[in-house]
């Protein structure tokens, strides 16, 4: 649990930026996990998570408390970063292939090895995620937030800053497209 209620912590950070470390320590695991499950690449997830917290740090002074939780705000930034990556790079299955085939990496990093081993043990997830990555980003994000992060429609709407009705509709269409891809 955060040591201070969110609004108080936010006010402290806006006065003393060093307090941002509290936020970082508390939310990093969740944000990294979300990004990692979306991109299935350890180094890329580290870069995107870093970029997310850097942007949050730079924008925190202008952040206005409008009832949106800090968690949702961080998820929103992370989602935008991941979407940007997919739009620029277009999904390349080779990365996923290299993880599945158990290619060794040159730099020893126990976290990386553990996470990639964990990924290899979730074949069903990997196969579904491979198809998710081929969908339009607006379907990717709702599906990932719903099924990988366990968020409900209200939380997804808050994160993506869209009406709940839109989220329901996107989910429905996204799941249908995913179902067709998985059954091919």
């Amino acid at each position: 649990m955060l040591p201070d209620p969110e609004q108080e912590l936010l006010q402290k950070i806006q006065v003393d930026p060093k307090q941002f470390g509290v936020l970082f320590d508390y939310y990093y695991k969740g944000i990294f996990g979300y990004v990692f499950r979306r991109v299935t690449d350890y180094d890329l997830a580290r870069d995107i998570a870093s970029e997310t917290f850097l942007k949050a740090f730079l924008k925190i002074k202008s952040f206005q408390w409008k009832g949106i939780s800090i968690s949702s705000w961080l998820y929103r930034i992370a989602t935008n970063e991941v979407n940007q990556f997919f739009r620029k790079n277009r999904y390349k299955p080779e990365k996923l292939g290299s993880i599945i085939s158990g290619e060794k990496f040159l730099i020893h990093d126990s976290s990386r090895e553990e996470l990639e081993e964990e990924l290899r043990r979730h074949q069903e997830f990997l196969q579904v995620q491979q198809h998710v990555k081929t969908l339009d980003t607006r379907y990717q994000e709702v599906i990932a937030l719903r099924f990988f992060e366990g968020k409900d429609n209200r939380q997804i709407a808050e994160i993506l800053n869209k009406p709940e009705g839109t989220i329901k509709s996107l989910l429905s269409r996204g799941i249908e497209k995913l179902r067709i891809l998985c059954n091919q």
Partner: protein
Amino acid sequence: MEDFEKKLDRMTIPSGSVKPPLEIKLAIVNAQRSAVLGIWFVAVPCYFLFCVFMKYYFHINLGLFDTMVEMMSDLDKNPIMKWLSPILLVGLPLLGITINGLALCHFSYKPEEKIFLISIRLRWLNIAVLLLSLALICIFMGYVVVESIHHNTGLL
């Protein structure tokens, strides 16, 4: 479709659990932009060298080198524009080395352990641009040194 949705709900998800890093290593400049800028910076020196090789080593006179030399001689007559050639041939590659070096390196100092750490990301395009810029500078500076010795001693 409901069955598929239930299947997705039941699917086990990797935890992706890591400890927050003690520090975030951020490059000082964006790697891709540095590489692209670096390529632009070495374009003119590479073109110059290409013209030199074509004329003096392959003996193919396309007129490119002569045109370039004429332009540079005209520039040399202007007290301000005479600096353009050194800037293009040496200054820009130097800038290319700097920005690509910053894109690759991360520096950290641990005062309690008195350790200064430099970590280098292996981004091959940036490394290639950096090495090419370095090679160009070495070639031009080497030429300047040799010409200077030749001028002073008249031995060569």
